[in-house]
């Protein structure tokens, strides 16, 4: 293989312009591959941070009670029954501390947050607005919602007498930070709290209809002295949501739902985006194969007399094949080693420069997720595969015809 390597290298060195073009072509293919990978992964991460990042990966809720159908006294008689969900008992997780501990101790869990939730009316003077109350422990607020970075007035402080409301609701109530409002829950309990912070997420329904309270205050307000509404779980690995949900359900006996199930459209959109990215990457690799194959095919035609003379000297077909495949491999490696750093530099530049005044990315590319090693390996393999056809054509050269004997 040593001598074949020398001949392959000599061939590439002798056609410098063609080799530079080939290496450049493979480099561009790798650049596209890695850039698309960094872009799709970055975009997915961005979407997750913007959406899934602020929603739980798994939600653990009370199990829905299945209404029972009582057996008929008359055996063999078919019974038709209309069933209706029970409304006698309120849905809540009782003895939630055990379930919380079980989930917290699971190795897949990053954090598990007990949440109480319910509906209420918030009143200031004559203005009454409906809100959805979410009660969490102060240290868990950022796990439940990205409120802290969205605060436009006051702080994200969830003390026992405080509430955080959206900017739209604050406007409707004409209330400012530090002013009191009265909140009356759908369980008939009432509490006066002060607005500690006003947030603006940018989604009108959230900015107008959501309020965050301290966990204990909310429990009392919503009359959930012995239970909670749900446990929201953030996982270490987002992709393990389905299996983790299954494990949690089994361990706690509660209903556990993974985020893709609760956010099917979002999940489908991310999946579709990944598939599109995969398709573009596939075509980038196909471009490498076509480019390398056609260039080496031309080389095999151009070098036909030389191949013929080699064959007349008793050089085997295997030798000729190896020389051409090695050219493909060398072009692939060189192109990949040019393309991968170029892709990283391009992605880093985009990530650094292409930002809005508020710092959010215009193109959410993540240079760390370019999968550069895969790009290098795929380009090399693709180039080697691309060289097989020209190599076979070269090996088949008839020496008599090539030398014009």
């Amino acid at each position: 293989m040593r001598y074949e390597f020398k001949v392959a290298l000599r061939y590439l060195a002798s056609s410098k312009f063609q080799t530079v073009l080939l290496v450049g072509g493979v480099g561009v293919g790798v650049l596209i591959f890695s850039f698309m990978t960094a872009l799709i992964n970055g975009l997915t991460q961005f979407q997750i941070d913007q959406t899934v990042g602020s929603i739980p990966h798994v939600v653990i809720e009370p199990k829905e009670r299945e209404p029972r159908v009582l057996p008929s006294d008359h055996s063999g008689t078919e019974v038709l029954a209309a069933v209706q969900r029970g409304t006698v008992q309120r849905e809540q997780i009782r003895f939630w501390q055990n379930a919380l501990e079980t989930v917290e101790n699971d190795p897949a869990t990053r954090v598990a947050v007990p949440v109480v939730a319910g509906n209420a009316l918030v009143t200031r003077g004559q203005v009454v607005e409906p809100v959805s109350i979410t009660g969490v422990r102060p240290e868990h607020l950022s796990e439940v919602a990205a409120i802290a970075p969205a605060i436009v007035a006051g702080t994200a402080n969830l003390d026992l007498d405080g509430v955080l409301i959206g900017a739209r609701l604050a406007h409707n109530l004409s209330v400012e930070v530090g002013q009191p409002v009265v909140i009356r829950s759908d369980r008939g309990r009432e509490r006066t709290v002060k607005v500690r912070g006003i947030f603006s997420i940018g989604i009108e329904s959230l900015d107008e209809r959501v309020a965050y309270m301290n966990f204990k205050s909310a429990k009392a307000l919503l009359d959930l002295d012995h239970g909670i509404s749900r446990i929201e779980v953030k996982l270490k690995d987002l992709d393990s949501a389905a299996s983790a949900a299954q494990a949690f359900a089994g361990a706690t006996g509660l209903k556990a739902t993974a985020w893709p199930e609760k956010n099917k459209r979002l999940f489908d959109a991310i999946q579709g985006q990944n598939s599109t990215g995969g398709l573009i990457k596939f075509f980038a690799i196909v471009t490498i194969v076509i480019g390398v194959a056609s260039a080496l095919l031309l080389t095999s035609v151009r070098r036909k007399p030389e191949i013929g003379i080699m064959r007349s000297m008793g050089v085997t077909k295997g030798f000729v094949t190896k020389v051409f495949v090695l050219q493909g491999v060398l072009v692939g490696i060189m192109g990949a080693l040019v393309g991968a750093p170029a892709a990283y530099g391009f992605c880093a530049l985009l990530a650094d420069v292409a930002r809005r005044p508020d710092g959010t990315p215009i193109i959410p590319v993540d240079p760390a997720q370019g999968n550069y090693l895969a790009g290098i390996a795929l380009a090399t393999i693709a180039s080697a595969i691309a060289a097989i056809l020209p190599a076979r054509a070269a090996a088949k050269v008839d020496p008599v015809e090539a030398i014009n004997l």
Partner: protein
Amino acid sequence: MNSLIPPSNDAGTPLLSVRDIFKTYVQGEVETEVLKGISFDLFRGELVSLLGPSGSGKSTLLSVLGTLLRPTSGRFTMRGIDLTGAAEVMLTAFRNRNIGFVFQYHHLLPDFTAIENVMFPAAATDGGETDAIEERAAMLLARVGLGARMHFKATKLSGGQKQRVAVARALMNRPALVLADEPTGNLDRESAEQVMELLAEINAESGTTFLISTHDPDIAARCHRHITVIDGRIGETPPFPRAAA
């Protein structure tokens, strides 16, 4: 190195024995019979010219003898080995070790130096340019008068020099037979004389058998024996002054 070669050959045993060789080219429904029953022997150390008008079948005969083309029928043996129906892999290996070629055009590899070109037949089959291979190539280049130019790129040599490198390359693996197809056809008179002189000297020194196809009566006149092919058959040889052996 020469594992395909029997231990020795007696002087009276032909190096190459050709019997009733036919070669027919088929293109579509058209069949062209180029060789029509060629038979002759070549002996070790002979310098033989292959004569005949253009299109008579000389090049086809050289291709068959060089194991580059298979005859349609007939039989030929070299060093006692029947090559007529041998497998291609075996023929390739046999060619590498036993047959050298010199063509009308030098066909040097343009990206390689003179010495790399000479080393090629051995290096390509022995896994690389070993010291022994390099030493022999340097010796051959010195023998053909190109010792000072061995590291010149092939493209930097004159036509006559290139052809002398081609001669050295043909001798690299110590072949028993060198087939030369119009080796001086592309050279000026002076270079042609030099190359032919060289072939004759090497033949005398090493005992390598040469079969040289030529139209040049002066070249043919230097050979020990003449084989004439006319219309695919062995024909009458015109009278040439016999060269001193």
